């Protein structure tokens, strides 16, 4: 980021939520970069940016789509880069129909299942010899993982390289003139994303849009690069993955990927949240982004491997068999053999989604007996907090491992539901175990951060009393479980007994953390150098001769040196700071860095020189580890039939993609469309000005009495919840507060839950600075102190004023923390992005009234009154396809009654009522 000439921070609040990483933005700014913050609120990031551009929460695709349209219509795209390195020239199937043709739907939508059949999105296939012109991927079975399985988070199920293509050959038109080229499809798709539309949907003024468009385009090209940074402001939406895709399309068009100062930075909020997806805590992934097998589709190892990658496609995913077999050897050692398919049948199979929210719903249905809570505080931190807390008494037992007695450990005696009388402690049968945890300074290990950098952390002191590190806890748990089944002959206990669980112990009997990192790195199992730590993933074999716990981390312990512990100040003399930590894969600091050179292998410019082809050495050389076959010449054109890394041509920088190109158009992989399209959030008082279709048609909905939605634009009752709220973090606290509300120094800095409102909204609702406000959504009623501030800007959207309410989400109700308060997450409903299963917690609809909330159960009466008044039912917002006639009818009815335009008299702020 320090190398960027322009940095756009959008969907994130980097200075507040990532203050340490923000040093690189400060550095770039000191070197002259322009910093722009696009956000509903003026935050501490805006305060040090060159410009803050306020926009309506949830409208980012419209703004970024507007930028894409600007780049295309003003001819600002980076032609050589786009033609050579992206799939702009690739020809898409004639069967493809765009949202522009189908009023908000892509071709292939099945209203019955609510899912897309992606066949028509495929690349057009070269005519085969018998001339049948078969469309790539038209074999229906190949699409199963994408379209027919119920909620399996398929976006992740393909690993980091996207889904399989059957082969490496695609049709191209390098003039980009063919109407079925990706480039022409892209142009048509975004043609209506004009500055006027951006203003209408996002509330971004024409002047602000022009400033942003100029800043981004003037700072892109051969000599300059622009970088984007985002966080949960983009991911936590019903189309969050598409928010990020829109930025990816823009950055590819501008040539800002694989180059210094370019890219899209996923700002990860915790010390190792990147690590927790690499070696995942997610239900649908195995280490290194290998998918979990799915019941019914992956009954054999071959089915499973074919689902990841075809041997005939380009790039390194074609070697997924080597990564998988080495993982199984690492898990099961000698128990993984060619005869038992390397233990493939030891792995559980997915029968559906098993994410956080499905687990909560399963608890409510009494399908879950026990629950481990680690590094999480769902009673405060998960969406629809009431539903979370009401699910917990359905458990027989739960284990909470944390530093303090967090709300998720004490809900049975001090939750808001105890106060309201909905739960009684004496009725709760759940057995709750609290296991004290060691802090990060009391244990050794690695953190993997945003830049994919693994950094070793030494243990500073021993944990007090009974506190244990996670490693120690799980090792001991494994030892005890294995003891219990040691004599078992039951086949289902075989995996437990075959599991390698032989970590060396230190003098206190704790497993040695370096031994785990070495296991992750991988070792040679056979031959003369058996037992040697592997030097990298290119050494992995599918024949059982290597073991590796996570293929992308292979090399972190090369030559038995803990590379993640390197700490040369400033990373040493090189520009890529290689002597600090270790970046996966293969210590590459910038991914896809082949793109930092032109198709001939020369740097695009002296200023942005990074990796280039050295004619004399016949190698790629430069400031980083080349992310490319190091001796593949720029003009090399291997036979695509060979498949795998060998098929990568000299101008295929995107070596993990099945065609070697950056995907402007995603023929597979995203379940909600090949191109990002603006839809309104699940709850929105604003009309989707682009299409009849109001919300994303493929979003995952839960139409339930305990998950009601506020009526959206065009529905009766929309005026009952007239304001848009958004939730966020503050620098002073850590997520749900488990690591900050128990600390006096942090608690005093932000002691109370508050809401942020504009002076105009404060006047409209009679809110007083420093006073109290009650905030109501169809899920909950909470209270907060009021900050009236110009940092909140009312926006003009669709011809009317939209007020936004800001709510930090750090506080929770309980009696253990130094500071407590109502939880913002109680207001949020559960509607998920179908790619990622992430909830839409960055935008919702609410009402705000002056005064504190009612108590002792009266808050539930207030909630009921609102629900009744708005006419909310489980069906509200949960129509998959927007019915244009219903919308018109509701609107005209509302207008006839006159209750749409002006507030209902009953809706007056009711400070006097309590």
């Amino acid at each position, binding site marked *: 980021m320090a190398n960027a000439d322009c940095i756009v921070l959008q969907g994130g609040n980097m*200075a*507040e939520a990532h*203050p*340490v990483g*923000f*040093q690189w933005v*400060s550095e770039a*700014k*000191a070197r002259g970069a*322009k910093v722009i913050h696009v956000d509903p609120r*003026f935050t*501490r*990031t*805006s*305060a*040090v*940016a*060159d*410009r*803050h551009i306020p926009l309506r929460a949830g409208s980012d695709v419209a703004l970024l789509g507007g930028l894409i349209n600007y780049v295309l219509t003003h001819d600002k795209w980076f032609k050589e880069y786009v033609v050579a390195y992206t799939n702009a020239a690739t020809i898409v199937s004639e069967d493809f129909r765009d949202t522009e043709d189908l009023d908000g739907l892509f071709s292939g939508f099945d209203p019955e299942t609510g899912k897309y059949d992606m066949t028509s999105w495929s690349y057009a296939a070269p005519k085969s010899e018998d001339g049948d012109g078969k469309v790539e991927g038209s074999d229906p079975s190949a699409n199963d993982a994408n379209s027919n399985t119920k909620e399996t988070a398929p976006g992740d199920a393909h690993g980091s390289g996207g889904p399989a293509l059957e082969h490496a050959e695609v049709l191209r038109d390098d003039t980009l003139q063919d109407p079925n080229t990706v480039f022409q499809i892209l142009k048509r798709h975004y043609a209506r994303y004009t500055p006027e539309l951006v203003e209408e949907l996002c509330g971004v003024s024409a002047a602000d849009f022009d*400033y942003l468009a100029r800043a981004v385009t003037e700072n892109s090209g051969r000599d300059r690069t622009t970088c984007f940074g985002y966080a949960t402001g983009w991911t936590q939406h019903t189309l969050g993955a598409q928010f990020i895709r829109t930025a990816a399309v823009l950055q590819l068009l501008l040539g800002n990927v694989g180059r210094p100062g370019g890219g899209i930075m996923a700002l990860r909020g915790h010390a190792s949240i990147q690590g927790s997806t690499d070696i995942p805590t997610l239900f649908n992934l195995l280490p290194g982004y290998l998918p979990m097998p799915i019941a019914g589709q992956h009954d054999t190892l071959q089915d499973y491997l074919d689902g990841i990658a075809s041997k005939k496609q380009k790039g390194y995913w074609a070697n997924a068999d080597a990564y998988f077999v080495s993982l199984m050897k690492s898990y099961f050692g000698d128990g993984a053999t060619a005869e038992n398919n390397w233990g493939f049948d030891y792995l559980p199979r997915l029968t559906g989604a098993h994410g956080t929210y499905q687990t909560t719903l399963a608890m409510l249905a009494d399908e879950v007996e026990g629950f481990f809570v680690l590094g999480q505080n769902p009673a405060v931190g998960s969406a629809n907090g009431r539903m979370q807390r009401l699910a917990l008494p359905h458990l027989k037992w739960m284990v909470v491992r944390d530093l303090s007695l967090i709300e998720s450990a004490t809900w049975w005696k001090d939750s808001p539901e105890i106060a309201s009388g909905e739960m009684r402690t004496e009725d709760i049968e759940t057995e709750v175990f609290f296991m004290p945890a060691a802090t990060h300074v009391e244990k050794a290990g690695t953190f993997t951060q945003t830049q994919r950098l693994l950094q070793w952390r030494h243990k500073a002191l021993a944990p007090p009393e009974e506190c244990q590190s996670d490693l120690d806890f799980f090792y001991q748990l494994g030892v005890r479980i294995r003891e219990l089944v040691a004599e078992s002959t039951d086949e289902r206990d075989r995996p437990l007994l075959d599991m390698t669980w032989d970590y060396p112990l230190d003098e206190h009997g704790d497993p040695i953390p370096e031994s785990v990192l070495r296991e992750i790195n991988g070792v040679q199992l056979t031959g003369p150098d058996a037992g040697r730590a592997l030097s990298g993933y290119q050494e992995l074999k599918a024949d059982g001769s290597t073991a590796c716990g996570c293929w992308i981390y292979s090399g972190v312990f090369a030559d038995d040196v803990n590379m993640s512990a390197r700490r040369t100040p400033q990373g040493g003399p090189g520009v890529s700071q290689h002597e600090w930590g270790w970046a996966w894969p293969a210590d590459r600091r910038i991914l896809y860095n082949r793109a930092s050179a032109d198709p001939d292998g020369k740097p695009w410019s002296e200023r942005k020189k990074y990796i280039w082809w050295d004619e004399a050495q016949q190698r790629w050389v430069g400031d980083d580890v080349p992310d490319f076959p190091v001796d593949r010449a720029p003009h090399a054109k291997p036979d695509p039939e060979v498949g795998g890394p060998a098929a990568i041509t000299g101008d295929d920088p995107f070596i993990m993609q099945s065609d070697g190109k950056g995907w402007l158009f995603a023929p597979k992989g995203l379940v909600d469309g090949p191109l990002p399209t603006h839809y309104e959030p699940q709850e929105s008082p604003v009309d989707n000005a682009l299409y009849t279709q109001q919300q994303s048609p493929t979003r995952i909905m839960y139409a339930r009495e305990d998950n009601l939605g506020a009526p959206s634009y065009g529905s009766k009752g929309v005026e009952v919840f007239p304001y848009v709220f958004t939730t966020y973090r*503050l*620098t*002073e606290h850590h997520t749900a507060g488990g690591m900050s509300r128990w600390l*006096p*120094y*942090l*608690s*005093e*800095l*932000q*002691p*109370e839950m*508050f809401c942020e409102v504009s002076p105009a909204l404060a006047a409209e609702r009679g809110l007083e*600075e*420093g006073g109290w406000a009650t905030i109501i959504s169809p899920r909950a009623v909470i209270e907060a*102190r*009021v*900050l009236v*501030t*110009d*940092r909140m800007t009312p926006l003009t959207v669709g011809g009317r004023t939209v007020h936004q309410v800001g709510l930090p989400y750090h506080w929770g109700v309980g*009696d*253990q*923390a*130094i*500071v407590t308060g109502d939880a913002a997450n109680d207001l949020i409903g559960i509607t998920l992005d179908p790619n990622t299963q992430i909830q839409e917690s960055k935008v919702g609809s609410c009402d705000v009234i002056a005064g504190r909330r009612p108590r002792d159960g009266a808050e539930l009466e207030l909630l009921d009154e609102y629900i009744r008044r708005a006419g909310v039912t489980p069906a509200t917002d949960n129509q998959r396809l927007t019915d244009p006639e219903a919308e018109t009818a509701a609107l005209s009815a509302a207008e006839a009654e006159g209750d749409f335009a002006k507030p209902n008299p009953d809706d007056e702020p009711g400070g006097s009522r309590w």
Partner: protein
Amino acid sequence: MVNLSLGHQFSGPTDPAADAHWPDVRERKGFFTDTSICIGCKACEVACKEWNHNPRDGDLELTAMSYDNTVSLGASTWRHVAFVEQDKERIEVARESGRRLVSLGMPSVRRPQDDAPPGPGASADATGTTDGAPTAYGNVDTTPPDTPEFRWLMASDVCKHCTHAGCLDVCPTGALMRTEFGTVVVQDDVCNGCGTCVAGCPFGVVERRSDGTAAPTTREGERKGEQPDVPKRGVAQKCTLCYDRLLDDETPACAKTCPTTSIKFGDHDDLVTDARERVAQLHAQGMTEARLYGANELDGVGGTGALFLLLDEPEVYGLPPDPRVCTADLPEMAKRAAIATGGMLAAAALAFLGGRR
């Protein structure tokens, strides 16, 4: 009583450690807090309390003063981040006042090595604590920067470690001392809690750690927030510029933790040079509101060890515009007192003489 026998200087430029007769004077240390790059993370407040084992203070209630809930420097808060929200009008006022500071031919133009006195045309501000850029204003590009509609100022305040420290000069027990680094430190075990220094500080930095009211909270029903016993009750407390860390060649905790280098630590003279360059750079970008605070050794405290780059007038951040050490006039006062005493004695003598007649 004030000890006049040391014979040290009470005003004007000087090296404070040498002036305090340290046999082995070290390079004067200080802070340069560049508020233009502060992100208001408050890591300095926390790092300071952690390192110095200062208890939390305050009532755990929202102040509604923007994001500031610790309110001011005090006995337990030795770094304090102020948050100021401003509209366009105020920004223009700040820009104009900064521009005036420069165009008036301020002592700012005068570098420490220049010996020329300030020009005769200098305004009252010339001896003030605030000054502008060292560049001639006529040459700079004054294109305004991009965020004119609204701004949110953040600034981390700290003890100024004055060249002429009122707290130290008035301390009757010698508890306050000048270190070899030119900084000012309270010796907890010497302080008798008289509180004279509290009134002696022109910046309102020093506070006595009270012996009852530092209890964790006054909130009704509050049983949490148990803290370790509040240490050093009743004695004067303030920033030590991490004297203990300086002795070990370590950077003070606040500067060490600052993620954006808004707080810079170093040799005082280097910091002054850097600070002047930074102001010039900002002025060149059209941010004429930028000005230095504490870099003028001709001000009422002889300049401060902790310098600040501000983006508005000092009052906006809660800083006095023209601080003056209470002992600045001591020699003059002593002289007058001597004359008065002489007169008294003469009058008395005359009276006696007259009486004899």
